[in-house]
């Protein structure tokens, strides 16, 4: 059945701003490109917005910035751990699969959560269960399963829940 949509000038305002900014950075903030970028930032969301779900907005931008910052630090720190593991003998390695129970259900926070897990060295998110209640993660070196699960949940899932308010 066809659903008739009401025309909206800016269906996804934050995406428009992001698109415009990226265009400016690519073209070194010249005046002509400011206009061209604005045209794109208005027209592209008209075409794309009906294809995707509603724009997810971070309700707590300061927390979101802090989350990004902490993720970057985590990447650096655990990179060191993985480098150490790589240079040691293969026999000391204890790879494992773990299942992390999930509390968030919305697509965007869930994507950010799984991506964060994949980005921090030592863990790669492998698969979601059908009901989106479990995330399967492969770990390069596992010492204590319960400790790692609660660490992942406390470090990434709890702040994400606060940021998106779900």
């Amino acid at each position: 059945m066809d659903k008739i949509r009401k025309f909206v000038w800016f269906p996804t305002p934050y995406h428009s701003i992001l698109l415009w900014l990226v265009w400016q950075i690519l073209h070194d903030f010249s005046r002509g490109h400011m206009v061209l970028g604005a045209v794109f930032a208005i027209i592209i969301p008209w075409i794309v917005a009906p294809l995707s779900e509603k724009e997810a907005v971070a309700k707590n931008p300061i927390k979101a910035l802090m989350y990004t910052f902490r993720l970057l630090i985590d990447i650096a720190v655990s990179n060191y751990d993985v480098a150490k593991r790589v240079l040691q003998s293969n026999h000391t390695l204890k790879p494992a699969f773990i299942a992390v129970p999930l509390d968030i259900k919305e697509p965007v926070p869930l994507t950010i959560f799984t991506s964060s897990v994949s980005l921090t060295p030592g863990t790669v998110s492998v698969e979601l269960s059908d009901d989106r209640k479990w995330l399967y993660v492969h770990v390069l070196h596992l010492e204590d399963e319960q400790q790692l699960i609660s660490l992942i949940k406390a470090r990434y899932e709890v702040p994400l829940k606060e940021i998106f308010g779900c």
Partner: protein
Amino acid sequence: MTVFLEVIVSVLLVFGSIVMLIGSIGLAKLPDYFTRLHAPTKASTLGVACILTASMIFFSIQQGHVSLKEVLISMFLLITAPVAAHMLAKAGLHYKVKMTDSTQNQHLAKKAYLHENPDDK
């Protein structure tokens, strides 16, 4: 360009290259598909970040204005790298790639393949 900045740029470049080298060594020597997946996805985050920071400092000074394109590169990289890793891991799961015997919780791999809950019988 002052000597001080040149030293910073060189140190960042060398450090980034070392991280990438360790990532490549890991890709070659780790025992199975899933563990090998870890090494390169990681090197591409910290290693590339160091090299991009060096490039940003160098070109900002050379051109006389702040060069922001590197920020874009790292942003796109941070968005796409985990997706690629996820798809590779998923593909490995589907082809039932052999794991090293020391892998713990191998029964979970089967559950993951079927998209089931871990406590289902």
